[in-house]
């Protein structure tokens, strides 16, 4: 019987023009979202690639010059540092770049906002161009991106509700409900079968279109691609299940189709639009992010202190104008380098202390906000999608941690060489630390996401249970 109803429901749906239109529009939106997301990712990836290639090429050129025995030039108008000087390489700005995860196309998430290239150098980042970024158009962050997660989080529920708001009420209004129930069939089975039919159909559309798109645009050979994709399927299934069970729950009250439609759309409005955006303002009002201004001021005070300190070591204008260094002889150059490196290392240590204090406060605030996600399934799903796509905060802080390590390795490699007045040999060049992002273990992603998935499933189960309880009192006639 169950299967019969399912088949019948499918037959009905495919005969209905409005369903077909809706399905085609929805599939088109999914397809466009995948295309659009991957286009954005490709652009970003190309930028990162150029960045890495340029700096690798630069190092290779220096190595080549060293191999040829070039020692730099102090000729006026053609000043060129000695390529073997650890100072000039160590002080140069290196970029550590966060590659996108293989499944990034699932959600652009925070990737457009959090800078994926982190500058690393012996000195503090102040004055380097890494600290002078931010040319993106603020307007581009306002609306957000038309990516797959947008379609899943915002539009999928609408599609589900548009299909299922009148599961029972339409049968009743058409007078077919009583007829159906004259079969050896109870209301629970009927409703479950109908909702299962729709569930399977919608899920099939969502998964088929998205996955085909993702397979066409992503690097499927990455070793965590399939595990991440499976987790995504699980999450989308749970999210779809939630909206269907909500529809069942609404249907179980026995309102008219019109009332069901109003109630369903109101719930969508509240859970997807109003609640998250209300929470955003509430959070910023109640638990404001600690102000960056204080950190800026503290870093500037460090800077000022160090300048006073530094003047003991060398007249401070040399800090501002390394290019104004006296040109007579090597020793002065090294002396200056030493003093500067010394001051910068000290300054960096203290800036890091300030930044750690900020990060600690900031982390506390974010943990608080994190728990609020359970107030709306859309927030849970959105965060989980970002997690799976590797465009969320967690993977980003994982990256920042590795950048810190790389920064340390970079300094540990060059600073002693600078102080020992060594020059780099060709073999030294081959040992210069390079940044390679270690992907976050899938287990971590899984453990964060699965909690949300289980929560969604649990809420769906509760809704179904309550709905079944209510069905006992369902009035069959209008």
């Amino acid at each position, binding site marked *: 019987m169950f299967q019969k109803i399912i088949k019948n429901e499918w037959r009905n749906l495919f005969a209905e023009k409005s369903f077909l239109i809706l399905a085609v529009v929805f599939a088109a939106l999914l397809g466009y979202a995948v295309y*659009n997301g991957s286009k*954005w990712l490709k652009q970003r990836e190309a930028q990162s690639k150029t960045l890495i290639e340029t700096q690798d090429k630069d190092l290779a050129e220096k190595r080549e010059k060293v191999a040829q025995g070039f020692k730099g030039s102090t000729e006026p108008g053609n000043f060129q540092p000695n390529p073997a000087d650890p100072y000039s390489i160590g002080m140069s700005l290196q970029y550590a770049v966060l590659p996108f995860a293989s499944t990034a196309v699932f959600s652009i998430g925070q990737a457009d906002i959090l800078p994926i290239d982190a500058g690393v150098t012996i000195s503090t980042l102040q004055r380097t161009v890494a600290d002078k970024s931010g040319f993106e158009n603020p307007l*581009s962050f*306002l609306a957000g991106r038309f990516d797959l997660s947008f379609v899943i989080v915002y539009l999928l529920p609408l599609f589900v509700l548009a299909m299922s708001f009148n599961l029972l009420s339409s049968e009743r209004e058409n007078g077919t409900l009583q007829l159906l129930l004259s079969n050896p069939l109870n209301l629970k089975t009927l409703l479950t079968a109908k909702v299962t039919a729709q569930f399977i159909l919608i899920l099939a559309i969502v998964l088929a279109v998205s996955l085909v798109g993702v397979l066409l645009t992503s690097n499927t050979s990455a070793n965590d691609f399939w595990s991440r994709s499976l987790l995504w399927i699980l999450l989308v299934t749970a999210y779809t299940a939630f909206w269907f069970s909500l529809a069942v729950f609404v249907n179980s009250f026995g309102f008219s189709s019109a009332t069901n439609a109003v109630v369903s759309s109101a719930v969508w409005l509240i859970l997807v639009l*109003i609640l998250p955006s209300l929470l955003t303002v509430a959070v910023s009002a109640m638990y404001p992010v600690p102000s960056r201004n204080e950190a*800026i001021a503290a870093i500037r005070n460090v800077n000022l202190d160090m300048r006073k300190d530094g003047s003991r070591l060398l007249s401070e204008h040399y800090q501002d104008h390394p290019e104004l260094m006296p040109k007579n002889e090597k020793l002065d150059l090294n002396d200056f380098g030493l003093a500067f490196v010394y001051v910068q290392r000290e300054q960096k240590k203290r800036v890091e202390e300030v930044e750690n204090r900020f990060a600690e406060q900031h982390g506390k605030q974010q943990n608080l906000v994190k728990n*609020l996600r359970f107030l709306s399934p859309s927030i849970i799903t959105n965060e989980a999608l970002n997690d799976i796509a590797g465009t969320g905060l967690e993977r980003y802080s994982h990256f920042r941690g590795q950048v810190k390590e790389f920064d340390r390795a970079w300094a540990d490699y060059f600073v002693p060489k600078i102080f020992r007045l060594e020059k780099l040999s060709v073999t030294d060049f081959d040992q210069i630390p390079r940044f390679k992002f270690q992907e976050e273990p899938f287990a971590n992603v899984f453990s964060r996401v699965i909690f949300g998935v289980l929560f969604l499933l649990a809420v769906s189960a509760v809704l179904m249970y309550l709905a079944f309880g209510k069905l006992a009192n369902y009035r069959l006639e209008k």
Partner: protein
Amino acid sequence: MIKTIAKKDFTEFLRDGRFRWTALIVFALLLVSLGLGWKNYSTVKREQDAAQADSRKTWENQGERNPHSAAHFGVYAYKPKMPLSLIDSGLDNFSGNSIWVEAHYQNPARNRPIEDATALQRFGELTASGVLQLLLPLLIIFLTFDAFAGERSSGTLRQVLSLGVPRLQLVLGKTLGVLAALLLLLVPATVIGILALALASENDVLLSSVPRFALMCVGYLLYFIAFIGIALTVSAFASNVRTSLVLLLAFWIFSCLLIPRFANDVAQNAHPIPSNKQFWDAVYKDMREGIDGHNPSNKRTKELEEKILAQYGVAKKEDLPINFNGLSLQASEEHSNLLFDKHFGNIWKTHHTQERTQGLFGTVSPFLPIRAFSMGMAGTDLRHQEHFSNAVEQYRREFVKMLNLDFAYNSKTKDDYNYFVGKEIWQKSPEFAYISPATNWALGGQIPSVVLLILWAFGTLGLAVYSATKMRAF
């Protein structure tokens, strides 16, 4: 006749429990968002003002130093929060709120609040403007979708039309009826908005905010009329109430959810922004080689040296009664100013091109022009961000010039960087005070949005009248 129709509809709305409830909820949301907006506004304003004062204090108390060295240390300029941002925070969360003012370089605004927020922030902020732009249209749809379709199915439309009521009057009456119902909730909200504004700002700021606020109200009124017009049009030609509702909701999803994102991506893809590295590489290249390869830096210094030596009639820099290095620094500053005008100018140009490209989609979605107009009036849009950024740059140039010239004329080339000055000079240096632009200026940038809003409002009303003349009575 118009009045009778409006009055009849208005009374019906009031008696309708659904209207009472939804209006109450929307009103409550409006209040909450105003309250939270006010709280955010005052927190951020306090922080920004304190930081600005702090930056100046650090500057004045930096001790004895060389003026150019101090110019390198520089000061920070913080973007003051605009009072109307409590109604529409616009781009405030997405644009940098502070700029480092230093010698040699114009810097982009940094510290976008969004960088420190969680993904939750991406759902958007429920500010009062959000309620007005997203939820009010829904309320209008709920009030209006059955305006004609409903009367047709209940048979009253036939009676009304048989009385010979002109269709224009019928449409205007219905429009006024809905507007009256909306005003019932908007007028108290506006009063509360003004109170919040008064509470949030000092008298002079409040006064300058009033015209902006008034214009904002007019903009929203046009936006609401546009939605009423659309709803009446659809209601007139839809075959039944259900189709009318479905079509209107689809339009709402299309214009408020889909189009803004779609327009954004189209604009971004059509006019990409250079990466940070590309931008600075280009700047450095121009610094070395002169703008577009003309007049490279060593040639410029040499020319200046010859000129100054001739002017003072001496043979060597060391014999000058002034410090040549100070003049040279200022000369290079003036050269790089041109260069920053070019490069930052290009960035702003691209931003505005992206904005205009998005704006084109305002022809299919009234949401885009009202969003732009509302931000523009609140002073939280792209143009105001640029205005702030330019003001800081103007200030930077005066600030650095003053320090360089002090260095040039009060020390000699041979003293050079052993020349130190103290508090007296730091206090004499200009202090950054941002004056937010006048209402006229803000309005000037919004002409396309205003035109679009007017077209939407009157176009759709016209369309409603047209559909009403064509509609079937049964």
